[in-house]
């Protein structure tokens, strides 16, 4: 897979952790341009840690992270955003004292041209029309689904070439999850490369073309989504048990 052409994101032998506690034990993962890739795994296996290493929030201990041909593992997070790689964190965190629009505009902080910022804003409102109606409301009063939209929208505001989404469907009602997944599908169709961490295994694999399963900070299984889906359910069930989730047509 990763042999075909140059990968957009290429992570090799990545190690890292918090303080002295090692979480990542030599993870290898790569994402091709234009692909949606799912990163799956149980609780506390290091999915978020891997994304944080890629976005620069934590400094890797070893290995390499290459984005669009450039080593980014020693770069500051804002420089990585400027390079075109954006992470949307788990937990739907916004700036609650600010309006929806201010939250979104902050995502375009690296864009110095006001016209381009406004164009990005229009694009986000196009993906998430409800945010246009709420744009002057403080984000503190939004529902969970709308908060997630603000977070994804903020990630899109700098017009990155790749976005990493950490559990975009977590703690949301099923019909909201459907909407979010459909929008991720649209965003990818419009040319965005996506790496998506998910507990919602089946839905994620329906959306993604390739998947990785992480366990103890290492990639345990990888392969095209249809292989992983059809892989015996035993292997999938140990991912965290969302196999029997509802079927989704996307």
């Amino acid at each position: 897979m990763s042999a075909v052409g140059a990968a957009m994101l290429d992570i090799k032998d990545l190690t890292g952790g918090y303080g002295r506690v090692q979480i990542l034990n030599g993870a290898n993962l790569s994402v091709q341009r234009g692909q949606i890739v799912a990163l799956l795994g149980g609780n506390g296996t290091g999915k978020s840690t891997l994304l944080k290493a890629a976005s620069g929030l934590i400094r890797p201990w070893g290995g390499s992270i290459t984005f669009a041909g450039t080593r980014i593992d020693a770069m500051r997070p804002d420089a990585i955003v400027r390079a075109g790689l954006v992470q949307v964190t788990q937990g739907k965190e916004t700036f609650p004292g600010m309006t929806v629009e201010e939250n979104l505009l902050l995502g375009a902080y690296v864009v110095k041209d006001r016209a381009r910022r406004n164009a990005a804003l229009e694009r986000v409102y196009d993906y998430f029309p409800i945010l246009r109606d709420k744009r002057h409301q403080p984000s503190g009063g939004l529902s969970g689904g709308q908060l997630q939209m603000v977070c994804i929208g903020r990630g899109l505001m700098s017009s990155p070439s790749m976005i990493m989404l950490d559990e975009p469907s977590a703690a949301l009602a099923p019909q909201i999850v459907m909407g979010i997944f459909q929008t991720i599908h649209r965003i990818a169709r419009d040319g965005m490369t996506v790496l998506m961490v998910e507990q919602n295994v089946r839905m994620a694999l329906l959306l993604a073309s390739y998947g990785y399963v992480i366990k103890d900070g290492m990639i345990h299984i990888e392969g095209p989504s249809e292989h992983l889906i059809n892989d015996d359910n035993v292997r999938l069930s140990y991912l965290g048990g969302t196999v029997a989730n509802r079927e989704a047509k996307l």
Partner: protein
Amino acid sequence: MLDYFVDPIIIGVSIGMVYGLVALGISLIYSGLDIVHFAHGEIYMFGAFIGLTLFQKLALPYVPTLLLAIVLTGLLGMFIERVFYRRLTSGGGGYTVAGMAMVVSGFGMSILLQNIAFLIWGPKALPFPVPHGMPIEIGDLALPMSYVWIIGTALVLMTALHLVLKKTMIGLAMRAVAYNKDIAYLSGINVPLMISLTFGVACALGAAAGVLIGPINYVQVQMGIGILVKAFAAAVVGGFGSLPGAVLGGVLVGVVESLGAGFISGTYKDVYAFVLLIIVLMVRPAGILGVSIKMKA
């Protein structure tokens, strides 16, 4: 009878504005860097001395003196943050950690700055004679121009800060950093730079306060100690971390102090601020405008 009150109230408001400017800086630093800056009184003192030096040695007019002192002290603040406080941050990433180390180094910085000021400007209380012109006459009232300058300048600076925080991308970024540094970083904001900038702005406001108080007080090495106490009282009364609260708290402390000195006794001038502080804390422990959202402008 009315004039009897108006006079101390105007004096109280203008002194309160000075407290408010220093308290604003303390609140900004607390919001943006998560530290309580115990050397902020010395920043105010440095601002006053720098202003005095510009005014006398370079013979600058008052307004350029004020502006240049603001800028220079702001830069000094950024230098102090970058070179000293940044070393105490987690992993050098520019995130400041609240903790005993920071409190101790704040006190250390306060002593260091006092000693440097002592070496440069000496122990004497120096006058800062600014010819502001004749007092304004309003009815029976003769309002000294220095008070008008304090109130006017403080209002301009507070409005400017409010507009920057509310209306510009830099201001938005400063508030974002105050609220959540990880998310700010992931939004593409240069977090360490914003922290420096926040610190610089806070120090610049302190310098403004120092240059404004200069003409009605003497400028001396120990002037930072008293103001720190008053500014803390102001920040807590208004709601620690709230920017409008810092201004409101400053004015309240100033007015209560001035009325107390005028009508009860001048001997206990410094006690009134604390009586106010205790009353407010009993009635509203979070302060008058206590907020959960940091750097609420």
